[in-house]
């Protein structure tokens, strides 16, 4: 068994253990590759493609978060083709998703010169804020479908399987089964999903209320009935939206 692999990344010779991803090997050499869907703590799925790199001999760009190093590999992490690809990904995201509370992605946009108006005809992915429980809200207008929440709800942490993808293509959204309110699902409100969300699409309810200008005293003086009334009203308002979506 080979215990180390030698490759070059951006011309630098790098030694890594077999099974290491290009992303990790690059990080060990001080070369940072941008990521959105990747989280150290979750299984990598190469969904956002922001981490793509060029590998000599490979026809297409390679997602570095899942591609493993191999002997003699020659990797380039910031060629014109890579940069253009990353910029386009960021521009497409910005044209459809509300990234206002995703500072890391905004920083990448700045770094790559991405223009949020690049695709003026693009349809925004809009959905009402789901406020169906006392612990956290779900604002899927801000969701980039990174899948972290689904994974920590499943085998990456909790084994609860309360949420998954629903719909296809543009209609894809994170959802509970049959779009049931969270308390009626297997959700245990551990909030692992809230912790890994990169765009604040998932947010603790008290943080959300505080940001809306409620004072701590006002938040804490909401009675259970008031908290529930809000819940019902929002749910009632949502019905046409979710009904019309399919």
């Amino acid at each position, binding site marked *: 068994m080979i215990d180390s692999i030698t490759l070059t990344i951006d011309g630098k010779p790098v030694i890594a253990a077999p099974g290491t991803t290009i992303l990790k090997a690059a990080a060990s050499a001080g070369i940072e590759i941008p990521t959105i869907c990747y989280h*150290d*703590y979750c299984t990598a799925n190469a969904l956002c493609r922001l981490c793509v790199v060029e590998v000599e001999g490979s026809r297409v760009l390679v997602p570095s978060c899942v591609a493993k190093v191999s002997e003699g590999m020659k990797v380039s992490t910031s060629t014109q083709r890579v940069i253009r690809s990353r910029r386009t990904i960021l521009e497409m995201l910005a044209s459809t998703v509300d990234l206002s509370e995703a500072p890391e992605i905004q920083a990448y946009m700045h770094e790559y010169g991405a223009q949020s108006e690049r695709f003026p005809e693009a349809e925004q992915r809009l959905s009402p804020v789901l406020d169906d*429980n*006392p*612990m*956290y809200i779900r604002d899927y207008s801000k969701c980039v479908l990174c899948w972290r929440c689904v994974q920590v709800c499943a*085998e990456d*942490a*909790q*084994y*609860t399987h309360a949420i998954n993808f629903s719909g296809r293509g543009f209609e894809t959204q994170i959802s509970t089964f049959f779009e*049931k309110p969270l*308390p*009626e*699902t*297997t*959700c*245990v*409100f*551990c*909030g*692992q999903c*809230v*912790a890994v969300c990169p765009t604040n699409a998932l947010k*603790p*309810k*008290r*943080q959300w209320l*505080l*940001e*809306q*200008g409620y004072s*701590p005293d006002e938040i*804490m*003086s909401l009675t*259970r009935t008031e*908290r*529930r009334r809000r819940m019902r009203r929002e749910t009632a308002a949502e019905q046409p939206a979710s009904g019309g979506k399919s």
Partner: protein
Amino acid sequence: MTLNDRVVTTTCPFCGVGCTLQLHMQDDFIYRVTSPYDSVVNRGNLCVKGRFGYDFIYNQKRVTKPLIRRTPQKPGQRTQAFDLSEWREVSWDEALEYVADRLVEIYRRNGSHAMATYCCAKATNEDNYLLEKMYRAIFRTNNVDHCTRLCHAASVVALQMAVGSSAMSNTAAEVAQNDVFIITGSNTAENHPIIALQMKAAIQKHGAKLIVVDPRRVEMVNYATLWLPEKPGSDVAVFSAMAHVILKEKLYNQAFIDQRTENFQAFAASIEKFTPEYAESVSGVERNLIVEAARLYGNAKNAAIYWSLGIPEHSHGTANALALINLALLTGNIGRPGTGLNPLRGQNNVQGASDMGAMPWHYPGYQRVDDETNARKFEQAWNIEPGGLNRELGLTTTEIVSAIGPNGVRSLYIMGENPMMSEPNLNHTRHKMEQLEFVVAQDIFINESGAFADVFLPAVSWAEKDGTFTNTDRRVQRVRKAIPPRGEARADWQIICDLAKRLEARLGRPNSAGWDYQHPSEIMREIGTVVPEYRGITYPRIEQTGIQVPAWDENHPGTPYLFAETFPRGRGKFHPLEDARMAEMPDEDYPLILTTGRVLEHWHGGTLTRHSWLDDLFPEALMEINPADAARLKVVEGSPVRVTSRRGSIVLRAKVTQKTTPGVVFIPFHFHEAAANLLTQDVIDPQAKIPEYKACAVRVSPAREEELANPEARQVRGRY
């Protein structure tokens, strides 16, 4: 609006897992809780209580000014006062002067045996150390106990008898190294959620096999290779039958038995009668399941046992725990990584409160009070004249309640506990509480017990003070002050020091036991001088990561697993067992067995979680009943039922579910509106004095909607 993001790292105040929390605050308002992914205990994972359940600290019902009852209370006519109008707001000075006067008056008139205190498994090590010190040093009594008596007392006693130590032998995360593990009497997924995640991963990712022995089909059964659905109270028979099979099939570890244990022959003889056939007749578990479980455990390379309150909370709790210990000794599954005897401790700091001597038979560090050398050691440490400390064993929690009366216990100082929810047979407890002459409650809310008090001393929550908690795998971790005290609330250790000085002045003690601390770190330094296991615990050493006790000196790295070379008592001792059943068997009048426990969203007596938005998720008591029993009793999902035992009666809604086995109903004990402990019985284990919460006989009958305390409180839930 962008929020400020001040972050303070601390330790979760709920269960014994001891997760690391990072509190995110704007001004003094915590709006988000996260956990670092490199945290040693929980790897960034939290449960609903840790992540969202902290909001009780801002609840507007919190009491933040000292209170004295308007109407003076008399023994026999003591009442509960929940409403603030029944109390008078006073200064700290007035409150503490009054407490000191009354306590000293009773002590002078009736002596040490009239004094008693409940320490608190939710408070810090430092708080508990000082409260037991105050009662021992000033009132010369060992009537000091806390809720460990009501949870793992029997596990502690059994482990002390068999191996000489009483804590989880191994680190929780070692479950990943188990080939086979047993969970019994523990609904781990709800009550130790983060350990349950590690268990699920051990099964799904590392190929471990799980055996669940439990009368309930708890969530972990979904991950189990074998589930042994025993009748409540039949643990001795089931586990002894497993030992019987292991003996007959020669799956035991002869080398380990020879080198590390004693009393094997007597044990082997006693196990002869526990055939699988016999165990089946007692427990209802099919004999083949018992044989299979024995083979699985007996053939494992690394096997561990995890248990919680379903084992100790019986009138024969000590025997139950000994049956588990016998299994581990028989197979040599102890003293190595990934093995062990692991009682999962309930409270965030029940291990610490026990270590701190908040118990009637032991000084801090499990040093017995009836041992002359120990007493002299503590007399020196606390500046007490030789012979000054009381050498008699004190009363346990349940015995304190029973001893209330004209010639018994006259006054009770309750720090943070809620005996009026957590004691068994609450009608009896209520009657006893009414007889007290003077009651002090030190808490953050007026709970069912605090409502009986003469004086209410407002303490701070865990987010408003510094200190340490010791978690279930013996890791001493920092608790940090994140926000200033609410209102005039004070840290428990400060209240105790202030009061102790007033008491010493009144009693004219020539030497002070020492109550001048600037910071809890100084208290910990003192603890290190009297508790050898804590000598290596100092605040600078645990600043980043907690250390697992024993830590024998300031260079000791801590102890991830115990008993590598030897047991504290020398050899591990086998205990021959006789079969034992629940004290109250079902009969014609009371045909069902009630077992009690907890749910994911709530904590014990509910003082914290029922003042949190957590209560929205689980707002009412529900009785779980098997569909077979439900059909027979004409009970449907959500319908109101009356549950009656020989001691009391409550009305609540039914939840018809396979989670409970036929003949058994389950009620969580968090809800004062339908307090399960009105039904339970106060029969206690003779050795550990722990009550039998886990089994009593009840009758269930349909009730009317109007009989429910709060018919409006309903929340549909889909979780298991």
